[in-house]
């Protein structure tokens, strides 16, 4: 079959002898390397890295970047991910030499500006969340979940309580049960009720003295506010358990309601979602954990504290769970989050108002064209079902998602939450204009129409992308996870 050539790998641009950096001469007395690093330790075969010029390098990665979808390219309605605009000035801030060139082992008295930034950010996160103290070490949402559950465990252990179970709703992110397992907890799954809230009757049945915590996302992954959150907290607190908030959906409620006031004891904040720090194509994120006063003694060491007019890294924390990573967390991400919050101040509330209004506006436009399994006022996101398109036209949600790529949009999150058949989860975020939402709704309605008139067109999508649909089954069956030099390749794959 005639086909376009494969896009080359950087290794395929390699020409022996090329280099993209200028290196100085050692400029020190010549000593045999064997003498420096000890006999027999010198690397025998050099690492098989590509050899390219600086321009080769620039073109390769520039072209790769052009094969990527990104917020700066277009609308990214990826539910549960809060793909909002990442302000440029935040990047400038993080690259200031005083931040980017600051060594993490610098004595705290020489890093006062950095520590002050963290201390101020902690105060702002506490005000927004209704919590009392923060750790900055966790480096992503899931890392925060693990840390938060360890804090709960340490708190309970300290009180002599051996509680073994963590309750997770069936609509939860997969990280919730995985994080609970990493903390040695048994996971109990509780169903959702007909309105999309956690089923309180089922919750009461499993809530007993063995429960360490309930992990809840609020608004939940259906994009709905848990209407009975106060009662749910009473049920859990009533049996001596703690309330953990998965903060993935915090963007819906900034300045509207605070998790600390809803009865949550611990939460993580996905700053790469809520506070606009770029997601980097899969990280870096940051998942600072905020807690109520009772859990503060257990936070990872060190914490940032103010002593008089100085800021210190407090290592002396006898009840601390320890570290969850080296150094001070993803500091460069916190610079961006801090800049974002200072750019809004109390106007932050408008972020959530606009995020929720955008979602409801889009839902209103799409309601007639897709099934809406839980048709309530949504928060910052909503979940449609493609079951009508599947039953009537044999077109799956995956096909609809792929067809949207042809229209120049990123697809929504699909097949999540697991409790919705053929789920299509759409989160527009507050930084999108009405015109963008109108155009996207038009495209999605057009795809729904194509499901009826030309289902093969949708099933064969995407058509206009740099590659067509990729064979994931073959990728998993015969994993090819790295390029190998020709000499190492045995049989042709």
């Amino acid at each position, binding site marked *: 079959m005639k086909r376009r050539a494969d896009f080359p790998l950087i290794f395929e641009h390699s020409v022996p002898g090329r280099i993209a950096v200028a290196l100085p001469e050692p400029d020190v007395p010549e000593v045999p390397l064997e003498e420096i690093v000890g006999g027999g330790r010198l690397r025998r075969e050099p690492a098989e890295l590509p050899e390219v010029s600086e321009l080769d390098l620039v073109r390769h990665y520039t072209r790769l970047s052009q094969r990527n979808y990104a917020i700066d390219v277009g609308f990214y309605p990826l539910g549960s991910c809060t793909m909002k605009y990442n302000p440029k000035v935040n990047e400038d801030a993080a690259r200031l030499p005083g931040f980017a060139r600051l060594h993490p082992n610098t004595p705290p008295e020489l890093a006062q500006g950095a520590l002050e930034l963290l201390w101020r950010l902690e105060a702002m996160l506490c005000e927004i969340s209704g919590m009392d103290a923060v750790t900055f070490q966790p480096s992503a949402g899931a890392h925060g979940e693990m840390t938060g559950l360890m804090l709960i465990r340490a708190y309970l252990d300290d009180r002599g309580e051996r509680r073994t179970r963590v309750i997770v709703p069936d609509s939860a992110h997969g990280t919730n049960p995985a994080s609970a397992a990493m903390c040695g907890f048994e996971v109990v799954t509780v169903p959702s009720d007909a309105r999309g809230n956690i089923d309180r009757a089922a919750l009461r049945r499993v809530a007993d003295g063995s429960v360490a915590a309930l992990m809840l996302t609020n608004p939940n992954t259906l994009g709905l506010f848990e209407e009975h959150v106060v009662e749910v907290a009473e049920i859990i607190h009533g049996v001596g358990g703690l309330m953990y908030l998965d903060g993935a959906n915090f963007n819906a409620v900034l300045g509207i309601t605070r998790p600390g006031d809803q009865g949550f004891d611990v939460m993580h904040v996905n700053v790469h979602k809520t506070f606009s720090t770029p997601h980097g194509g899969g990280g870096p994120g940051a998942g600072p954990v905020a807690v109520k006063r009772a859990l503060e003694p257990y936070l990872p060491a060190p914490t940032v504290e103010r002593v008089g007019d100085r800021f210190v890294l407090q290592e002396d924390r006898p009840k601390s769970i320890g570290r969850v990573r080296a150094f001070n967390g993803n500091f460069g991400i916190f610079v961006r989050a801090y800049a974002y919050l200072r750019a809004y*101040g109390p106007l932050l509330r408008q972020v959530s108002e606009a995020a929720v209004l955008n979602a409801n506006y889009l839902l209103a436009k799409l309601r007639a064209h897709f099934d809406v399994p839980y048709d309530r006022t949504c928060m910052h996101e909503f979940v449609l079902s493609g079951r009508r398109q599947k039953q009537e036209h044999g077109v799956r949600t995956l096909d609809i998602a792929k067809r949207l790529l042809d229209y120049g949009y990123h697809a929504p999150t699909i097949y999540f939450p697991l409790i919705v058949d053929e789920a299509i989860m759409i989160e527009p975020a507050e930084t999108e204009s009405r015109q963008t939402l109108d155009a996207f709704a038009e495209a999605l309605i057009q795809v729904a129409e194509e499901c009826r008139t030309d289902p093969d067109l949708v099933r064969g999508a995407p058509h206009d992308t740099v590659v067509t649909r990729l064979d994931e089954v073959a990728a998993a069956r015969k994993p090819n996870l790295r390029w190998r030099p020709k000499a190492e390749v045995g049989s042709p794959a």
Partner: protein
Amino acid sequence: MAQAGDWHPHRYLPMTAAERAEMLRATGRASVEELFTDIPEAVRLRRPLALPPALAEPELLAHLRELAERNAHADRLVCFLGGGAYDHVVPSVVWHLAGRAEFYTAYTPYQAEVMQGELQAGYEYQSMLCALTGMDVANASMYDGASATAEAAVMARDLTRRDEVVVSAAVHPHYRRTLETYVRHLGIGIRTLAHTGGVTDPASVRDAIGAGTAAVVVQSPNVFGCLEDGAALAAAAHDAGALLVVAVTEPLSLGLIEPPGAWGADIVAGEGQPLGNHLSFGGPYLGMLATREAFVRRMPGRLVGATTDREGRRGFVLTLQTREQHIRREKATSNICTNEALNALAAAIYLAALGKSGLRRVAELNARRAHYARTRLAAIPGVRPAFDAPVFNEFTLRLPVPPDTLNARLRDHGILGGLALHRWYPELEDAWLVCVTEARTRAQIDVLVDAVAAGVAA
């Protein structure tokens, strides 16, 4: 102040007051308040957030510059500080490319057909990391070196079905503390093995481990800068049926030193910051994780694999996802979801910029300049090497004055001195860990030597 009925234009919000009114009408609501009626009144915040007032961009930058300038960063003081993060030259090209918005404003590549850039870059990163470490497979990154090392230990437990981990005291203390936290509730015990003259003695490893040992965790170059005898440590671990986990905090060392894959390491974990990533007060960095082919299905984290599209063209996808939390939930190999993709991209660009010969040359530069500095510093009366083992770009000295005192004196010469090791090893009260990378010139080293000579004599 934002009252319920007001709307204040903001540069990051496209919505105008007029559009807001129209959009509310389109949803059948009379006010924004009606969007929030599912929230119980008892938990509504009925006051403005008590946050400092909004800043316009110039004021914002001025404020951040003021905070930044109160830090003794590595462009202001000449940095001889290491200890798990390293001041290397980051070529301009690295962040001009990694800093392209098409990369940094993307999400995780869930829609492969429009994310081939990210995915191919991940595949290339994995390939380069395998080449660097001498291992068969590498994942697309972890949070940092410490958490990657902890996850490697958990992985070793799952692979061996044994529940004890023996860790060398010469592993970075942040890594050891992270490891302790990660395994505390998983029924994994940790034993710490004292170092012998700054290195891990293979004979004492043999004595310490047994049929219950899942892994021996060492670091090379270790926290004192010393190179471990990797092959002997691997043999000791393997003879007892345990795996060898090697933490690498300075991956540039692998340009010059035999990589862990060549000595028989089973899992290599480590810190990728030295590969083109800024110091940034500790993060974002990237965790490296590489292992043997046979172990790939027990590996945590994302993996990019090559495949083909319907026309037979090469393309890339996230693969072997049945290991991961979104499929396996509580039975996943780890809870990790978001990793450090952008930092891994920077590491790959950095490695490609150096290339096969450049990596070796930059590693040699580190070793030669560090050797020169070590030799000259050790010639100062009262200063002596703490350990005899060979080193790469970091070394421990014993000082005749308290290291903190010397560091304070060096600051007057514009120098950010080495690490006072008593912070981590109270018994090493006179030990000073000095790092000399390729970014330090001979002239800077000579200034350091003179300043130390004056500082210890004062």
